[in-house]
């Protein structure tokens, strides 16, 4: 009995040591991707116009994902930086709006590894956004500044498969802001009052699903071509708000293409392949 117990303790200790070493090592595996894409945008901001402006959009997306030591090494950290610019026109094609936005999202996902092919990830996110919409025709309300941030929930499904020995990885991710804050001038307030006269007002509003129901979704497919890991994807970015009696939305649909780099952080070893049980992706 004593020998059995001693053996059990030994195995447990060994496993613990292994997992710590494994955890330490897994944090050095990084997946980075850079995507560029184009699509369509639908922009509404009732501070500028009650009409929806539509037109082309370009977007870049940089993603970085690696495992952490949290919860036994089962949590991955994801940084996503996006920048987009759209050139849109009103329905009658008589006025133009230029929209530029940047966003940074940090997410921690607990990884549920269901089998060798399928992973489901879920966890909290922090999302920060900033930008500007400019209308070329307006007088004292020519532009609207956009600045908002939130914490939310993110879910991801990663499925790895092979078609005739050709490896493919499909990923779907959705990110939903739940609680946050947003800058907005008041309903009929000019930026002249805010910045030149320095008048106060309710310029920061609490946001949640009731007044800012937004959703970001990505669908990507990874596939190797020679020594490169290519990625194609579709981004559906729905950003909406109704604060200070002003309605706004930016609906973006973009098709993206780029490449992925999986590497080990030690110098000179960035060609090391990532085993299934340690890879963040």
């Amino acid at each position, binding site marked *: 009995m004593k020998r059995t117990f001693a053996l059990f303790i030994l195995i447990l200790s060994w496993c613990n040591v292994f997992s710590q070493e494994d955890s330490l090592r897994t944090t050095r595996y990084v997946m980075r991707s850079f995507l560029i894409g184009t699509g369509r945008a639908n922009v509404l901001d009732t501070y500028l116009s009650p009409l929806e402006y539509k037109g082309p959009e370009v977007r870049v997306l940089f993603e970085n994902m690696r495992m952490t030591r949290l919860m036994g090494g089962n949590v991955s950290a994801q940084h996503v930086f996006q920048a987009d610019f759209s050139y849109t026109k009103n329905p009658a094609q*008589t006025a133009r709006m230029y929209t530029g936005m940047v966003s940074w999202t940090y997410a921690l996902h607990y990884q549920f590894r269901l089998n060798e092919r399928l992973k489901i990830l879920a966890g909290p996110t922090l999302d920060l956004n900033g930008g500007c919409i400019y209308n070329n025709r307006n007088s004292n309300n020519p532009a609207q500044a956009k600045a908002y941030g939130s914490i939310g929930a993110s*879910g991801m499904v990663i499925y790895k498969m092979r078609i005739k020995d050709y490896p493919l990885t499909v990923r779907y991710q959705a990110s939903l802001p739940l609680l946050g804050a947003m800058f907005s001038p008041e309903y009929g307030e*000019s930026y002249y009052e805010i910045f030149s006269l320095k008048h106060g007002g309710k310029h920061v509003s609490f946001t949640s699903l009731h007044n800012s129901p937004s959703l970001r979704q990505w669908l990507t497919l990874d596939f190797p071509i020679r020594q490169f890991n290519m990625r194609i994807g579709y981004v559906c970015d729905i950003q909406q*708000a109704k604060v200070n009696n002003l309605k706004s939305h930016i609906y973006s649909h973009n098709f993206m293409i780029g490449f992925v780099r999986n590497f080990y952080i030690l110098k000179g070893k960035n060609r090391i392949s990532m085993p299934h049980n340690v890879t963040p992706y």
Partner: protein
Amino acid sequence: MIMKKTIYYLLLAVLATSCIREDISGNSPEDNFEALWKIIDEQYCFLEYKSQEYGLDWDEVHARYAERITSSMGSEALFEVLSEMVNELRDGHVNLSSSLATSQYREWFDAYPRNFSDSIQSNYLKKDYVNSSGLTYQILDNNIAYIYCSSFSDGIGDGNLDQTLNKLAICDGLIIDVRNNGGGNLTTAQKLAARFTDKKVLVGYMCHKTGPGHNDFSTPEAVYIEPSSGIRWQKKAVVLTNRRSYSATNDFVNSMKQFDDVVIVGDKTGGGSGLPFSSEIPNGWSIRFSASPMFDPDMGQLEFGIDPDVKVDMTSEDMQQGKDTMIETACRILKN
């Protein structure tokens, strides 16, 4: 179990997500009429004030003009009816713009004497006047400085103002003529006004709409003019006004009226105390309208103009002699 719950709550949250859109659809004459009426109804800032002043009833305007809208009417006819509708607001800041034309309410100056003649003005400016950053100036024969400011649309440089006031410092008094100045940038008007005070002065209040209701306004906040750090005018000054002194010029006159050594001479200004915003209707026509009202230090309305301290009109006798009655009056005030 945790995973199932997470997915459940995530899906629930996604289902709660709904579209935020503006309730505007269609591009028929009726749709454009309704869209324009709604923009004014929800965003125009003087509906209540004008209801008290001359009985404007925006709902009644809707009923009256809706009868003139038909689905078969052409763009030109629609523009005419919509222009007439927004002219009910009696506001020079309300303009409907299309490729056909831009509507304008002109009664605020057409129904009054012009009180300005550039040919008579040239008798005072002579041929050796100076132009500096949008200001035209001359030293008159009686050693009174005369500055004509035709617009606040372009910025006035601090260096130019320093040079101008420095050059005119030898004069006994200064006339600033803002007749026929239709406005421009408020910041430019305030920059010029800041040269005529040595202390921070309360010149009025400003507020804005906080919602679509006719009475949804923020608490009015004080507007001050702080003295410029550049060269400031230390002697008596007269501001000349007429009905075409409008918008940012109206604001300039209001600011100058609060200063100790400044006298407003001429005709009542044209008004236009609402900071204009722009919007548009489905057919792409743009509409400019007053969005944020400005008040004097006693919270009095300035929308229909500011009365001068000394009311003077150009007389036909003076005009026949090539004299500007207002400039002559200003000179007498400054010399006394």
